[in-house]
């Protein structure tokens, strides 16, 4: 997958509004590989909706979203499974970790189906993010900030052409945010992928190619 295009896209909930003033909604917008985008948004402007649409989780929008030239509303379940395994990575704002499993198991449950990262690499990331002692701790017992770091590691355990990170550092201090940004960019550059970061204020300090206001 080389590009993601939004053509006149608008969430159905905004359909009644006529004051939509956005760089994303109702525009013709294309995300390209190897570029870094920041989508800045206020609450309630559809940031999480955007991620859900791109990931085939929700379809309540008008207009079109294209992967290369394919309209994603036509994708089958099988195609979405393949895209989620091989082309698109998403760090959900609500993380979507499994509280019953340990931090390591949460990462492995993803890495088991992609076989993308080695155990050493995963352990190195745990170390870099300052939670090496938490690998065997249950996610349910960890703080949200710690969970965000585990979720980031899990997000990177797959091949991808684009990676979405939805408010990845909302509960992190500056130092950890910087490390997280480094890890994300290193992996994205290694894979030649496009990166789309969203934020409602605090955002990772990176060299963004384009900043969009939602």
């Amino acid at each position, binding site marked *: 997958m080389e590009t993601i295009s939004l053509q006149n896209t608008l969430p159905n909930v905004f359909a009644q509004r006529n004051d939509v003033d956005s760089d994303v909604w109702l525009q013709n917008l294309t995300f390209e590989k190897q570029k870094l985008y920041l989508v800045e948004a206020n609450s309630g402007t559809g940031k999480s909706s955007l991620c*859900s649409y791109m990931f085939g*989780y929700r379809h309540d929008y008008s207009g079109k979203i294209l992967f290369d030239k394919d309209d994603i509303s036509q994708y089958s379940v*099988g195609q979405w499974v393949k895209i*989620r395994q091989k082309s698109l990575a998403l760090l959900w704002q609500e993380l979507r970790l*499994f509280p019953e499993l340990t931090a390591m198991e949460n990462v492995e*449950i993803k890495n*088991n*189906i992609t076989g993308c990262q080695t155990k050493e690499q995963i352990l190195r990331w745990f170390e870099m993010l300052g939670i090496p002692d938490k690998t065997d701790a249950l996610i349910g017992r960890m703080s949200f900030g710690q969970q965000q770091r585990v979720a980031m590691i899990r997000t990177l355990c797959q091949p991808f052409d684009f990676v979405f990170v939805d408010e990845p550092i909302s509960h992190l201090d500056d130092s950890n945010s910087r490390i997280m940004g480094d890890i994300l960019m290193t992996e994205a550059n290694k894979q030649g992928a496009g990166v789309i970061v969203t934020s409602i204020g605090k955002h990772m300090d990176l060299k963004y190619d384009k900043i969009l206001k939602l």
Partner: protein
Amino acid sequence: MIWKLLRQHISIPQFLGFFLANLVGMVIILLGVQFYTDTQAVYTGEDSFMKSDYLIVNKKISAVTTLTGKSSAFSHPELQDMERQKFVERMGCFTSSAFDVNATFDLDQMTNISTDMFFEAVPDEFVDVKSEDWTFRQGVKELPIILPRNYLDLYNFGYAQSRNMPKLSEGILGVIKLKINIRGNGRNDEYVGRIVGFSSRLNTILVPQPFMDWANSYYADGKSNAPTRLILEVNNPTDEHLTTYLQDNNYETDQDKLDASKTTFMLRMIVGIVMSVGVVISLLALYVLMLSVYLLVEKNNTKLENLLLIGYSPARVSRPYQILTIGLNVLVLLIAFVVMFVVRNIYMEMFQNFFPELETPSVALSLAVGLFLLVIVSTVNVIAVYTKVKSIWNRKS
């Protein structure tokens, strides 16, 4: 690891409930099938000489026919009409002897029983005796004979009882030879009769058809009498058309035989009802299982959704639950088989007491039915689980 996630919220009591209910249903179904197979052998095995679905038909004899001298024989058109009926698979005529027969039983040196009698014959394909026993070659003076079983009873419980004579078993009679004297057409010959079997359904003294054909032309003028009795192979003795046809034409058949088929019919019906109960219980059990799996999927909804969102396919996510249900089904089937064998051993012991000569029928049919049900139920489970998981995928759309 997925299992570690998805086994959360599994309700042991619900699955135990399914397990027991399905077990009861399955045992009832399997036992029904097996019991039917076993009793079927009792019914068909009772009279080895006559296959089960043969009927003997004759015209009703009433005072009027006796007085008017109206023939009780079947005319040619009547025979043709009978053969055309749908319920008739095959038809054969009884040929009666046109010569005099006298038989002498040599019980011991002192006692002789001598009696005038007659022979009848039916086409060989209606007689179920080993073919080497049931043959006649011209010039050989040995003659195979099938006797009605009640002749033996008459002798044993009437004659022998009153005269203090030894009682005879079927086995011994097979060894004893009868002296048979045949007279007619100016000829008079001695034959040795060998009893090859007893029939409780066929109330006549049977000899092979080839002998009868030859003897009728040799000891009589060869002019064959019109048959007065017919033997029919029917596809279903309980067929209504059969009964009405016989009534309309004023024919009658051996009531005994129809009674036996009625009993078989009743048995079949009872087993059918019992098995339907088993099927209903199994269906309810299946319903309980589906409900608890649905509930489980509902409770684990978020987990399943998250698994799908990190790239698991619906098929992969369904698999643990599918394996769980299939495992339960297999376990139920295995235990049901064990229970069936145990119960069967108990009732077969009783059967053996009633019918010692009975061969033990195979269990292949009930095994096949069990496996068939397993496949059906498991397929339904697998599809239902997959559909349910797939519905999570589609929920947001």
